[in-house]
């Protein structure tokens, strides 16, 4: 058993303490927007926020996440108002297959919280998610649009 706070709700999940947070979110909580890509914290498809910081949930045990504020892609918007990153993603038509984009969006949202006007160098350093479709150009443009808004 683990007590998790996900998207502002307290949830008790019946999992072993060493279960990766990713699988607790996907299978036990049922929020499937957070994706499995590699399981070894390489690709970033499973990125969520833990206490506001981007984290690769496949590499975090639920026992480490207890008592912390976890935000998934489903909890990024404020009610019916999409987060500015989601809005920019729609405006720039960023996703191709879209599978990596939940993680990409969460990573970018965390970056912008820390650095509202990131330089290209800041983006290069902070955004290390894999996108096999190759949406990087649109990702970069969308980030700059938000920063310059």
């Amino acid at each position, binding site marked *: 058993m683990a007590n998790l706070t996900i998207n502002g709700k307290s949830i008790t999940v019946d*999992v*072993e303490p060493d*279960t*990766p947070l990713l*699988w607790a979110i996907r*299978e*036990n909580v*049922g*929020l*499937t*927007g*957070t*994706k*499995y*890509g*590699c*399981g*070894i914290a*390489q*690709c970033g*498809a499973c990125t969520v926020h833990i206490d506001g910081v981007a984290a690769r949930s496949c590499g975090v045990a639920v026992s480490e996440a207890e008592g912390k504020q976890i935000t*998934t*892609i*489903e909890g*990024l*918007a404020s009610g019916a108002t*999409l987060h500015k990153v*989601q809005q920019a*993603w*729609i405006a720039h*038509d*960023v*996703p*191709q*297959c*879209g*599978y*990596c*984009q*939940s993680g990409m*969006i969460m990573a970018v949202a965390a970056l912008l919280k820390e650095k509202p006007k990131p330089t290209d160098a800041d*983006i*290069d*350093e902070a*955004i*290390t*998610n*894999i*996108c*096999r*479709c*190759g*949406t*990087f*150009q*649109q*990702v*970069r443009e969308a980030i700059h649009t938000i920063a310059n808004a």
Partner: protein
Amino acid sequence: MNKYVSPAMNRRAFVIGTAAVSAGLALGLDIPFGRPAVVRAADGSPEVNAWVVVRPDDTVVIRIARSEMGQGSLTGLAQLVAEELECDWSKVTTEYPTPGQSVARKRVWGDFSTGGSRGIRSSQDYVRKGGATARMMLIQAAANEWKVPASECTAAKSVITHTPSGRTTTYGKVAEAAAKLTPPAEVKLKDPKDWTIAGKGVSRLDTADKTTGAMTYGIDVKLPGMLNAAIKDCPVFGGKVKSFDEAKIAGMKGVKKVVRVGDSAVAVVADTWWHAKTALEALPIVWDEGDNAKVSSESIAKWLAEGLDNEQPAYVGNKNGDAKAAIAGAAKKIEAVYNYPYQNHATMEPMNATALYTADKCEVWCGTQNGEAAFAAVLEASGLPAEKCDVHKLMLGGGFGRRGQTDYVRQAVAIARQMPGTPIKLLWSREEDMAHGRYHPITQCKMTGAFDADNNLVALHYRLSGQSILFSLRPEALQNGMDPAAFQGVAQSGEAAFGYSVPNLLIEHAMRNPHVPPGFWRGVNVNHNAIYMECFMDELAHAAGQDPLEFRRKLMGSHPKHLAVLNAVAGKIGWSKPAPQGVYRGIAQVMGYGSYVAGAAEISVTDGSKIKVHRIVASTDPGYVVNPAQVERQIAGSFVFGLSALFYGGCTVKDGRIEQSNFDTYNSMRINEMPKVEAVMVPSGGFWGGVGEPTIGVAAPAVLNAYFAATGKRIRSVPLRDQNISFA
């Protein structure tokens, strides 16, 4: 095409509910009586024809048979239908018919296969006719109601106007009547220059859900009572399961069943996938690895190298004059040997499928590039006839050719058959995905070029040795044993034709098929053929003491479309002017998938081993451009895919198995390594080429040729990581 189709089952009525999975997939057919009868969508709205459903609120539902995997053809195909339909684009939505429904209606939606950059080019004609036919029927229905000639009516943005009287109605109001009409025998399609929806960079129709986590991929399927399966196939291709000791994991949490899958795999079924995977890793499995366990990258390389010997048999794919004689008598000749490795598709979403098998039904939910192939796989694996099977397609988390294969569908059905009544979601781990790909084929190539005394290229001998994809996957397509696709990009003619005229030319393929299963990997044979030919063209130019662009131009006089895209990139990158200090350029061109493409790169190199790519310019002539914004993204994405393979890719073989196991050993480019791609579209019209794949061919050679310009060193082997060359 589908040999499992039962001829007795056409036009039968059935309704399939898929509400449990995802909205937008449900599509029922209701044909209660004889003709003329209205075919209805699941919500009761009338089908004007197979491609177009109009709801009373004027929403237009466009049916899409090809699969969306990121390439944007879902939107592009909808644009083509909407263009001819003259509907309000803001009210367009799409849905996938299922392969089972298509088969039941005599394949009314045609080919579902989404590969070979064919999504739009192979269906543009009939989907546009579908839109045009529906428009004419809707106009006729309005004319009938008004009792006026249809010729006095026009349609625009879903509104029909009777011009003389000024009366108007909407598609939603007349759709019911239109659906009862007999379709016109002939329709005239618009001239693309008159397009208002097609040809425009309209926003994709599938973006919003991809930003909120709401999009349902195969991995996200949830069905009542569903269990999850993790699988391990014999790591040595061709090996078998000897035994496994399920007692060892019997007490592990959540485990429901351990099953053998075919001869070669074992799956653990559990309440959650995490439990299934954890138990599978603890399960002792003994393999019969067979003789293939002796194969290594070294043994494959040695076997392929033997094929480069002219005394060995080879298939001739393109020939002109007498290359061997001309080389023998030439004033000067140069020779080089190149190689290209196996590559994994590494789609971000690992392979998966969910199957529900009962005594009288088998349904599968999955991402697939070929709904009909997946359907045929379900029939074969379930043993049930077509009318008792179906496939529900979901968004693909990447395809790149991998999801045109159906191995994972067969496995899911094989597991579900052993647990009737329980939906089973089979998901491969990333490690399983790396170990059991359908790999870009491995090849080597020896090229010899010969010059006369004036440094004119008089002969070229291109001898490829290596694997054939068709030999393994579509042997019926071989021509007297030859794989015609092996010559993609260097073929005599057709959609992947060689772009140079050489008086004495010999292009041949010594086929050698190692045990590693090959597959169609984005760009397919264009990838290595373009690297070999375009890098060697650069070598020839330097041997002749000529500028690589000018050297090519002299050979391209009879290939104006190849030349036009090459000139377009040369102009855009500023080839005639010096590059900035410390920056070096490379250029390449190729034809593939019916389109002409060229690319140029500007790079700098530090310490001979750290490459910074500053600029990429890419040009494409696909004939027509349906959505320029999406074509631009395909061009840029092609560079990410092609350069990831060049720098980081390469699957190696040891003890008969693939050594790379995850993204730590099979890496992919990140945002910091990728410059902006400046796309130059030069559609010349009159033909329909593909865009998803051809550009990959020029990505690597443009950079490799720039590397030579920077360092004077030729790289003839991929990937660069094996030579300690990396991104700066």
